[in-house]
């Protein structure tokens, strides 16, 4: 779910950036193909998540992960207030920053698709709606790029957690230091994750 969403998001950003740079636009065969790629990758963005929700609605593992990711405990707020420095807090698998990123991205995908659809309604809706949608689309595009840069930055600077996103393994020390509650909750039969 994470990587397919990430892939679509990068296609979305890449195609719109290419449209702003004349030489890149020509390289990709002009505006029309880039526009189609942008629109389709954008519309597809929520589907990896939706697929995950539907396919694994009976999976204890994914269900609990998604519920955890979607909810902020009081400790998560405290952790955010300490700018991620307070590891004495007993955090679950996801920290407040990751949860904030998830919440922001889910909300942003909704807003981008809504405004994107309005932007395409050339004759159906009044012009002021399209200008408003364009404005909102652009504003959130900038916010998404900023938040995404932060997300990638934190991932790179917390390399073990980035690595775990690929290898699906994490060192026990790292996990103990960053998300003790989760370590305690891992079942005996799943100890090979460490």
């Amino acid at each position, binding site marked *: 779910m994470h990587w397919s969403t990430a892939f679509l998001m990068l296609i979305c950003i890449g195609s719109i950036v290419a449209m*702003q740079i*004349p*030489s890149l*636009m*020509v390289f990709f065969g*002009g*505006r029309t193909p880039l526009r189609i790629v942008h629109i389709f990758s954008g519309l597809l963005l929520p589907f990896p998540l939706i697929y995950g929700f539907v396919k694994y609605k009976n999976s*204890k*593992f994914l269900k*609990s*992960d998604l*519920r*955890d*990711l*979607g*909810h*902020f*405990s*009081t400790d*998560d707020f405290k952790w955010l207030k300490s700018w991620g420095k307070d590891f004495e807090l007993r955090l*679950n*698998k996801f920290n407040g920053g990751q*949860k*904030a990123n*998830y*919440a*922001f991205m*889910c*909300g*942003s995908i*909704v*807003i981008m698709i*809504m*405004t994107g659809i*309005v932007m395409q309604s*050339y*004759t159906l809706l009044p*012009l*002021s*709606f*399209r*200008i*408003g*949608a*364009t*404005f*909102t689309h*652009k*504003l959130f595009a*900038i916010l998404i790029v900023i938040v995404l840069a932060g997300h990638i930055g934190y991932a790179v600077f917390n390399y073990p957690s980035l690595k775990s996103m690929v290898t699906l393994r994490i060192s026990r020390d790292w996990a103990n230091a960053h998300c003790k*509650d*989760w370590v*305690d*909750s*891992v*079942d005996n039969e*799943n100890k090979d*994750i460490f």
Partner: protein
Amino acid sequence: MAVISNKSLGKPVTRRAVLGFGVLGILGIAFGSAISDKLSGLFSKLSPNNPLSNILPGANGFEIYTVSGFPTESTSAYKLSVGGLVNNPVTLSYDDLLKLKATHMTKDFQCVTGWRVPNVKWTGVRLKDILDIAGVKNSARAVLFRSFDGVYTESLTINQAMRADVIVAYSMLGTSLTEEHGGPVRLYVAPMYGYKSIKWLSAIELSSTVVPGYWENLGYAVNAWIGRSNGRSDPPVD
């Protein structure tokens, strides 16, 4: 695998974010145009040449469109031919154009897809002056324009072409025309949507009937008056 502890889940922040952003989106669509207007006042000091004006919301930058690519031609090699139903077909060089009487205009550029760049400075030669040099025959009723990209074409009726606010432009935004804006020479038809203002202008041909241009063959209005065509209601340029 990981089952979260019995500790209470806490606040459903993502659900709230999704719903909240949804409401924000509706508000943005409804009122974003007014906010955008306020901001464009703020950003009006930003030159449309500044790359930031393409990025910041409400900054009224140009979107760069082309149907072919970006053909390059130096000012020294540039030639504008005027032919068809004229008494003396001529070919003008870039320097010839500079020697003709210059017309300055500061007017908006309105695209049919909705964006508008306010107060663009244009300099060029009135199309009428160029047509007068070639001497339009009485049988001529329309003008066809060709781009040296070899693909794009445009059209005007004689009456439209003779208007004072239709110029063959060699300067825009205070500098000589850049390649991406259609340099070295393009047309600027102030009262019509941007697709009439053909980039990389290379030939003007007088004919007896209007020959629809590139986008007009694909459904755009041939008489592209701003606010009175293409199903749009934009205010006219000032």
